[in-house]
């Protein structure tokens, strides 16, 4: 009996640590000692104590608390799925290890050897699964966009799988352990493959839909670019017409020697009117040098958006920008996030303005976005990349965290951030590949 409890204890410790490692590794988390102790006392200890009474169901307790913990730590719904997947993969690993050990050492009958080999296989499979799973997840996240609908469906699928898996485990016939485990494993594997396929299909469809929406948006953006250009053309024609009128009224002032009137007319009417029109036209004219159409449309939309919020938007593209070596969808997302944030921060601020420039620095294309911000809020560079950070209320700060994520995955892109009051400046360096 002592040997059995000893084995049980060791097994639970190893399984719990693997479980915790798996989740921590996949989500890139960092636990402080206090948190680790909390996890052990609140999650693992009760699970272990409950196990003899309610059996495998205690794992569900462990799983739900763990999932809640991960969610609280990261605030990302999708991470609940990862916790479920960690459990599923580890159970599969456990089954495979059991079977391998049974196949290899059953004849020898050495209890200790088979325990060691079981743990060895278990840990090895656990590590391999964790590594592969993280790879796949990272790839999918960097390529595909996951919206909340997809994450809820995936989490639902994950939880259902775990529940069915446990119903299955409950049904294990302990008299015929090896056979049952083998059957179980086959069932799990089939179920797991089905689950993977369905999650994959859901993700894929969602991504397709996103891409289509994206393209539609691009078309719309480009249309607004064309409309703006037409508007400018019309303004020019109007200006030419006005020009004649202006000259003739100037002439009247001069002929009458009414210099007072000339002064007011010139400064209050001509210069003022000119200035307002110039700002926008200049921005649109600068876009001529941007030869990436999807970006052109996006920037136009943002110029119009800034205008509707009465935020002056200056753009400088002195040299032609023909290509940037980044996937167009990612590039659009990055520029979109940068400009949205800049406009948002400059909105409603006294002297709020947004400046944007594409600059050739040798082989590198440098994108600079700068904005003024509310000086009453003392922001620090290291805070703005935290998920959920925003100076304007909750649930608005995901953008910059996403931006950091995107640039981290692109090896030819660097992101620098700087606050030099009153400006908040972001520089993105795009290297040629």
């Amino acid at each position, binding site marked *: 009996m002592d040997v059995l409890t000893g084995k049980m204890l060791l097994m639970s410790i190893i399984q719990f640590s693997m479980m915790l490692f798996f989740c921590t590794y996949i989500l*890139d988390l*960092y636990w*402080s*000692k*206090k948190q680790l102790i909390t996890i052990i006392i609140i999650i693992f200890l009760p699970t272990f104590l409950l196990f003899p009474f309610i059996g495998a169901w205690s794992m569900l307790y462990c799983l739900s608390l763990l999932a809640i913990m991960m969610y609280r730590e990261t605030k990302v719904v999708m991470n609940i799925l990862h916790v479920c997947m960690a459990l599923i993969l580890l159970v599969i690993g456990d089954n495979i290890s059991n079977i391998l050990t049974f196949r290899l050492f059953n004849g020898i009958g050495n209890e200790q050897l088979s325990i060691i080999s079981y743990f060895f296989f278990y840990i090895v499979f656990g590590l391999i699964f964790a590594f592969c799973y993280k790879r796949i997840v990272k790839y999918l996240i960097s390529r595909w966009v996951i919206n909340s609908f997809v994450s809820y469906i995936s989490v639902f699928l994950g939880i259902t799988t775990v529940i069915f898996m446990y119903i299955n485990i409950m049904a294990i016939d302990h008299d015929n352990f090896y056979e049952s485990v083998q059957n179980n494993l086959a069932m799990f594997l089939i179920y797991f493959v089905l689950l993977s396929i369905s999650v994959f299909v859901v993700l894929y469809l969602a991504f397709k839909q996103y891409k289509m929406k994206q393209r539609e948006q691009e078309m719309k953006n480009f249309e607004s670019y064309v409309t703006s250009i037409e508007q400018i053309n019309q303004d020019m024609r109007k200006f030419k017409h006005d020009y004649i009128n202006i000259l003739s009224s100037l002439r009247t002032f001069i002929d009458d020697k009414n210099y007072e009137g000339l002064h007011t007319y010139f400064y209050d009417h001509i*210069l003022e009117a000119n*200035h307002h029109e*110039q700002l926008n036209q*200049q921005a649109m004219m600068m876009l001529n040098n941007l030869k990436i159409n999807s970006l052109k449309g996006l920037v136009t939309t943002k110029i119009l958006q800034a205008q509707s919020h009465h935020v002056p938007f*200056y753009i*400088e593209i*002195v040299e032609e920008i023909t290509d940037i070596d980044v996937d167009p969808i990612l590039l659009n997302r990055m520029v979109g996030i940068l400009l949205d944030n800049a406009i948002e921060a400059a909105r409603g601020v006294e002297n709020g303005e947004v*400046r*944007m*420039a594409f*600059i050739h*620095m*040798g*082989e*590198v294309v*440098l994108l*600079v976005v*700068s904005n003024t911000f509310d000086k009453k809020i003392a922001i*620090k*560079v*290291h805070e703005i990349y935290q998920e959920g950070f925003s100076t304007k209320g909750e649930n608005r700060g995901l953008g910059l965290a996403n931006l950091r994520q995107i*640039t*981290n*995955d692109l*090896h030819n892109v*660097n*992101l*620098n*951030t*700087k*606050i*030099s009051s009153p400006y908040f400046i972001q520089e993105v*360096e795009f*290297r040629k590949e």
Partner: protein
Amino acid sequence: MDIIICEDDIAQLERAKKTIENYAMIEDNGMKIVLATTNPDDVLAFLENDKADCYFLDIDLNHEITGIALGTKIREKDPIASLVYITTHAEMSYLTFIYKLAALDFIIKDHPDLLKDKLLSTLKEAHRRYLKIGEQDNIQKFQIKTTGRTHNIDFQNVYFFEASPGSHKIILHLENEHLEFYGRLKDYEDLHEDFYRCHKSFIVNRSKIKNIDSKERIIFLDNDEVCYVSARLIKGLMK
């Protein structure tokens, strides 16, 4: 401090020249205009064997050489001189000048009444910088090359270096700036005696540490940012 002005409009050139000369006479601080011209070729000829400390340049010079091209030429010879651009609102390319030419300031000539004040305040700033050039030798700096640019960084400004996981990027954390570049932490840990490799992914500047939570193995820095220290390397910090 030697000053050069290049402006194609002769009236504006005279006005700027006058303003600066008057100011230099009153202050008597060694400022003098060594060249005031409408032709950028004169500036290039002058640069052949001499250089000035402060340049006021118009952008549109009515010449095949624009103010930007002239600025680029000046920068090739002299990376620290102050460049000031005189420009109309429509030609304004603020960020491009700063990033490409490290221009000191811009004077917008659309508002002639503001022009004089702006000219003088810029001149003062250029002079302040000029005086600092000599002093700056005492401040220790090192260079970071990001893609396309070189940054001179004050050791005193560094909080910590962070290696980003999974790529060969390093993020340098300064007072209010994050700089990202390619490299290995190993090459930076011996740059300064205050730098300490406290973790596989971090080099911390000891002089910026506010306190250390040795139980949780977290380092709190003066700007409230945090970095981590590994169990093995914490001893080197606790001394």
